[in-house]
């Protein structure tokens, strides 16, 4: 029987407030094999760690149990302390008497009794612990950034700047993302393209950066430091190396009725197109749904006008396979579909638009060439109504497509829109209906106040209940003014809806490929809400931009840089120590059935034929499972799947778990 020491932490009053820590230490001290037991206010402090180290030496401890917070919080701390005193770090067990005990109980007697059970369970387990040694795995010094919006661009630039090669995978034909569609940026009102395009060009020119545009991640295997990724390069029917971006094909293409995604379908483009003038790469694409040659086999006009000979109607999707040490998700967002909001007449009237559509109307390369004009008749609107929180801050069941969260960016961009309208067209009446105006951020509230005080935008507290298109082409906006306790009717020429934003649809399947966790809204979950905001709980996967939660551009750029610094920190290492708590198979029990390999999410299990003959008469070859310890992540799925009990997990052996259950039931 091993000599065990027990250390009970008060965590200030976090634990001691609902658990009688002295009684826990005393009771556990009477367990057989426990030769030392004590309590201390903060076991994770230097003084607390010294108590553990001193006790290991003084009482020749062979196993240590710390009753404290969750092992997610301080297991690494205590393992280091134990190792510093000469014990194998895996001879430590943490009993979680905070998150799973003191925080959820109110009654002292109940909490204390449970803490004792949890402590006793850890003592039972540590008896069966064996010293483990962590192996090492090499780090591939290359990063992958998925998504080429401002988040992905900034992350890639920062990683490349540090000297590491980085690849950007972007599903659209060009990088740049939403920021390319935006006219001006708050709170300084500088031109979005003017600040973005230099960064896009830098990506194209930086020799450490490879851009895979019009490409998607197809499969991901491997683990931190050593991911293998398969990238699908969608056929664009144009040879990227030959195309000069001259635009001759796009001008001559006879198809003119394809909805232009860059303008959110508010205008049409040709079937051969370059998304916009500053696209990176500046390479044409053929829309295979619309191109006459690709759909009907006729035409071929673009090929005849292309002096570079870049058009290739036979082009197929191709695949790139590459290894990476780190992966950054930067998949961004989209406005939600607001077709469900009949009360705002969005699908009935062309003059009811979303805020992103309004950006396109304001921007010089948009459908109205930057002139504020109604999409129905091209006339300049005299009265514009902005509606905030369309689909944000909604209970799940209200419209079926709303979001419970605040989309965060709408208050500021609506103030910006209102301000721009009043500045360029001072004879326009601008109303903003709001529930709350949320403007935390440097110079943000000042910006909003300027819209009210200097630009004379009418801010009205209350929600719009109904928008009704009238026979004369105007829109009757019926809304409440909560301050004056009136119901208003505004005769508007245009209504702009601040639609909620949601993560891009590609995020969910990507998260599955990366085994990275997501919340119920499909935002990626961070490893710690406060202290590890740019890391996924899955090692080697990092988060940049809105894929983690709603953010504006300054916040996105800050987070993108933070994600890059985490990636650089990882790639700077030559080797990573592996988790030694991995699976192994007992070859005498294994019958080679493949159950374990079928459930293994990491592809860590292979089979080999082994010679088990014991006498000289005849050989006995059997097929047995073999675990690649560098690939195994210790999830334990195989141990559950194995019908013969041959698979076991080091550090979490079936025998240890049974000992824990026995200790709880004692």
């Amino acid at each position: 029987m091993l000599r065990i020491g027990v250390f009970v932490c008060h965590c200030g009053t976090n634990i001691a407030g609902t658990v009688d820590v002295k009684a826990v230490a005393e009771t556990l001290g009477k367990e057989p094999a426990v030769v030392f037991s004590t309590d201390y206010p903060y076991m994770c402090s230097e003084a607390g760690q010294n108590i553990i180290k001193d006790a290991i030496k003084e009482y020749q401890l062979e196993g240590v149990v710390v009753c404290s917070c969750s092992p997610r919080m301080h297991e690494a701390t205590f393992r280091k302390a134990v190792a510093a005193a000469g014990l194998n770090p895996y001879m430590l067990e943490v009993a979680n008497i905070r998150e799973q005990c003191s925080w959820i109980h109110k009654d002292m007697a109940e909490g204390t009794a449970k803490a004792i059970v949890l402590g006793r369970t850890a003592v039972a387990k540590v008896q069966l612990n064996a010293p483990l040694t962590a192996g090492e795995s090499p780090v591939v010094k290359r990063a992958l950034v998925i998504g080429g919006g401002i988040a992905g661009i900034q992350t890639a630039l920062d990683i490349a700047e540090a000297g590491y090669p980085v690849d950007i995978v972007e599903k659209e034909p060009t990088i740049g993302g939403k920021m390319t569609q935006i006219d001006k940026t708050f709170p300084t009102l500088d031109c979005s393209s003017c600040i973005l395009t230099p960064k896009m060009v830098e990506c194209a020119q930086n020799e450490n950066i490879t851009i895979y545009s019009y490409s998607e991640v197809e499969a991901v295997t491997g683990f931190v430091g050593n991911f293998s990724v398969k990238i699908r390069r969608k056929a664009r029917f144009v040879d990227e190396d030959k195309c000069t971006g001259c635009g001759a094909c796009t001008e001559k293409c006879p198809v003119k009725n394809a909805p232009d995604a860059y303008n959110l379908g508010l205008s049409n483009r040709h079937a051969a197109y370059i998304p916009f003038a500053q696209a990176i790469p500046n390479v044409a694409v053929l829309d295979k749904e619309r191109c006459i040659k690709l759909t009907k086999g006729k035409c071929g006009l673009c090929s005849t006008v292309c002096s570079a000979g870049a058009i290739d109607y036979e082009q197929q999707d191709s695949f790139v396979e590459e290894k990476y040490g780190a992966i950054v998700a930067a998949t961004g967002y989209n406005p939600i579909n607001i077709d469900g909001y009949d009360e705002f007449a969005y699908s009935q009237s062309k003059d009811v638009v979303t805020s992103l559509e309004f950006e396109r109307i304001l921007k010089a390369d948009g459908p109205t060439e930057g002139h504020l004009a109604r999409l129905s008749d091209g006339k300049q609107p005299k009265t514009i109504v902005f509606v905030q929180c369309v689909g944000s801050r909604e209970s799940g069941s209200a419209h079926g497509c709303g979001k419970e969260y605040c989309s965060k960016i709408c208050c500021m961009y609506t103030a910006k829109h209102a301000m721009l309208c009043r500045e360029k067209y001072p004879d326009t009446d601008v109303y903003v209906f709001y529930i709350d105006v949320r403007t935390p951020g440097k110079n943000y509230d000042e910006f909003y106040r300027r819209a009210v005080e200097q630009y004379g935008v009418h801010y009205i507290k209350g929600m719009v209940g109904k928008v009704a298109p009238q026979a004369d082409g105007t829109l009757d906006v019926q809304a409440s003014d909560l301050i004056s306790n009136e119901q208003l009717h505004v005769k508007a020429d245009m209504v702009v809806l601040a639609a909620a934003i949601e993560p891009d649809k590609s995020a969910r399947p990507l998260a599955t490929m990366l085994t990275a966790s997501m919340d119920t809204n499909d935002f990626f979950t961070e490893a710690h809400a406060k202290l590890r905001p740019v890391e996924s709980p899955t090692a080697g996967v990092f988060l940049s931009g809105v894929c983690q939660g709603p953010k504006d551009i300054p916040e996105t750029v800050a987070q993108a840089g933070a994600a890059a610094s985490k990636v650089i920190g990882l790639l700077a290492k030559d080797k990573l120590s592996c988790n030694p708590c991995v699976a192994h198979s007992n070859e005498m029990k294994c019958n080679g059935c493949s159950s374990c390999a079928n459930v293994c999410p990491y592809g860590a299990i292979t089979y080999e034929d082994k010679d088990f003959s014991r006498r000289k008469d005849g050989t006995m070859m059997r097929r047995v499972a073999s675990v690649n310890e560098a690939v195994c992540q210790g999830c334990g799925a195989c141990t559950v799947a194995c019908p013969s009990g041959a698979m076991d997990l080091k550090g979490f052996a079936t025998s240890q778990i049974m000992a824990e259950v026995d200790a709880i039931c004692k």
Partner: protein
Amino acid sequence: MADYKELVLTASGVNPLKCMRCGKCSGTCPSYDAMEYHPHQFVYMVEKGDIEKLMESKSIYTCLSCFACVERCPRDVEPAKLVEAVRLAVIRQQGKNHLKSEQIPDMVDEELPQQAIVSAFRKYSK
């Protein structure tokens, strides 16, 4: 007073604390100008326990029960159900049944939907 609040909350099944005070109910209400207290005020006054003012107000009869406020509320608060519950509180306070079950056989004809009888009991009986 507290009893009325309890009654209104129980009878309506509405939790006024879910309201985020956006005013969309009042923005959408077609009977707004005919009401002394508007839908968003109903929610807030019930939350404060100000039920007697509502019971004395004509607003509870000028509500059309069109349920537009219920349909469009982003937080599922259901203001129209509160109006209905206040009406019920008035009937109970008057202490008499405006509709007695003995009266029913004389009123029934083949055309009358059964649902109307059930609904009438809800509105006019304790």
